């Protein structure tokens, strides 16, 4: 299977769309835009899993895809937007890294992922190999989003994007056991993180979601 075959091209297009959304996450300054890009990435992941389910003939992947569609494209973005609306954070987010430098760093990381992943998977099928390269890029860009944003929402969004990359890699492995369990457990981590933002009341205590405020409390007690 290679370029020109429908299953191959569609899964490439979906994975490529996810990578594109990672770059959107990197340059988007406004919080609602950030959440919309994350929801799109989650939706593309769901479609990629459904497509792989059809291409591999694996029923379990349909469930993974549906979970991703419902939770990542709808529920979590909705919860995050509710939170943001309640806190009145429609403005732009403070970034630790400017747009230009973070885009350059992002391109560098994507190139690194290609350099690392393309030769190593030479033994596997072309599909798995290129999926791995894209997934690794999404994971690395998610980390970059976490580093480049100074606020709690930005860190949650970055971690969720990383997790999307993980699941993309997982659905590419033919017949991976425990796939549903693993993707659910990874989702649980993200849900707990979102719940943490809700429940710890970072806003109540610090009047902001900017985690830099927390740094006053770090280090030795005086």
């Amino acid at each position, binding site marked *: 299977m290679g370029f020109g075959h429908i299953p191959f091209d569609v899964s490439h297009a979906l994975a490529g769309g996810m990578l594109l959304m990672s770059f959107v996450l990197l340059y988007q300054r406004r919080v609602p835009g950030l959440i919309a890009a994350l929801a799109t990435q989650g939706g593309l992941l769901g479609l990629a899993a459904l497509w792989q389910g059809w291409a591999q003939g694996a029923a379990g992947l349909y469930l993974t895809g549906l979970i991703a569609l419902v939770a990542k494209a709808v529920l979590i973005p909705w919860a995050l937007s509710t939170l943001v609306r309640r806190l009145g954070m429609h403005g732009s987010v403070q970034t630790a890294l400017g747009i230009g430098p973070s885009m350059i760093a992002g391109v560098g990381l994507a190139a690194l992922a290609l350099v690392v992943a393309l030769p190593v998977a030479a033994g596997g099928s072309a599909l798995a190999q290129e999926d791995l390269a894209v997934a690794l890029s999404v994971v690395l860009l998610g980390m970059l989003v976490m580093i480049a944003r100074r606020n709690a929402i930005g860190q949650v969004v970055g971690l969720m994007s990383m997790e999307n990359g*993980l699941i993309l890699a997982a659905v590419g492995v033919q017949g991976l056991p425990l796939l549903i369990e693993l993707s659910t457990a990874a989702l649980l*981590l993200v849900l707990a993180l979102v719940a*943490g933002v809700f429940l710890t009341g970072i806003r109540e*205590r610090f009047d902001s979601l900017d985690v830099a405020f927390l740094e006053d409390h770090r280090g030795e*007690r005086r």
Partner: protein
Amino acid sequence: MMAALVLFPWAAALLLALLPGQRLSARLNAAASVVGLVLAVGLVLGPEPAAGLLHLDGLNLPLLLIGGFIGATASVYSLGAIHAEAFPPWAGRAYHAAFQIFLGAQSLALLSDNLGVMWVAIEIATLASVLMVAVHRTPSAIEAAWKFFVLAGVGIALALFGTIVLAMAARPLLADPESLLSISALRAVAAGADPGLLSLAAVMLLVGYGTKAGLVPLHSWLPDADAEGPTAISAVLSGLLLNAALHAILRVGSIIGLNAEAISPAPFLLVLGLASLLLASLALWRRRDARRLFAWSSIEHIGIAAICFSLPGGAAPGMLHLIGHSLLKSAVFYAVGRAIILKGSQKIADISGLATSHPALGWGLLLGIAGLAGLPPFPLLMSEIRLLVVAAIFNPWLLILLLLGLFTAGAALVTALTKLCWGPETPDAPAPAGAPMAGGWTVLGPVWLHLAVAALLAVGLPGPMGRMLAAAAGVLQ
């Protein structure tokens, strides 16, 4: 029998989440943890269980025993400290339930033969420990929990990626995809798998689980988490969670090491371990907060254990070091926790002169810190000497770095010891109204029991303990 070690604490957690009475929950928590210890001991005495999804071997058995033991003593300590922690009602429930969930997940992470299940178990243990660190809801506790959560979240995400890549490497070689994540099945095919994919998996898993193990430069959550949660949690974090994470690294290393062409995880582990030892040996000098001091000492010791495991012939001393450190560090945390309650402050300057004002506690703390500093009669001295021998054979330059780190760290701990135990006596804080200061046995019992067991291990080294260490080393070959 093995499944009971996981399922029993989880059933207890369900019960503890439903019970409102805090005093009763604390007692039930202690009882459940003691049953957990009995179940772990049952693994040694009972017939060898058949391997399936869970497996038992020389590597995880000692860690399970230590886990059961520290779980039991930490819950007894927690019983005595429950007044001083002053949880709101919901927090008491969450804390006790999370404690049992943590113990069950910890056992599952050690027992699992499936890398996917191991990952899920470590994730559950992380979530439970984040909850326990945040339970006081002070700004510092929330900051510590958030930092722990975000760093650990990135770490376990990378570990899952590594796990998936490992499965990808084994996929063309395994006829039965169901066994794609099984450690034994992966070991069988590792030699023929794609070395590039294995190398990528090795890096991801080392960084991922290395974050959870608190290896430098991925350590920054540990001092905060150890300083801000309830003290019993510092003991289980430093005593158990770090072991489970290092165990995961060793299991993965034992798979990838079988492939001659893939990059070996050992040099990376050596560098991370050395960085941990050297950075911690310097950082220990600058600590003013007692719990942060011992958190840094955990970073130092997990670094030493990592160095041991990365050297040929170092697995037995590494295992001894892990066990000895867990026992001594949790004893020290219990004693320090009690001292903090008595003096009403976490600062080292405020806890001075403990050996004269509270002799039983002060001397217990003194012996514990001495053991951590590598003084006799405790096992860390022996594991460090063995490490030096192994290192000298491996590379003399390594020996110099190790001696430098060990002496700097040991001297820092002895300095702290003289301040905490012998300095001018500081006055006790007035006992809070309505909270009895009784219940000293819940601290002194665990502290002295840990010290006795640690000394016994050192004495029993040539006999049964030696055989146990050899069995652990055998698994990693």
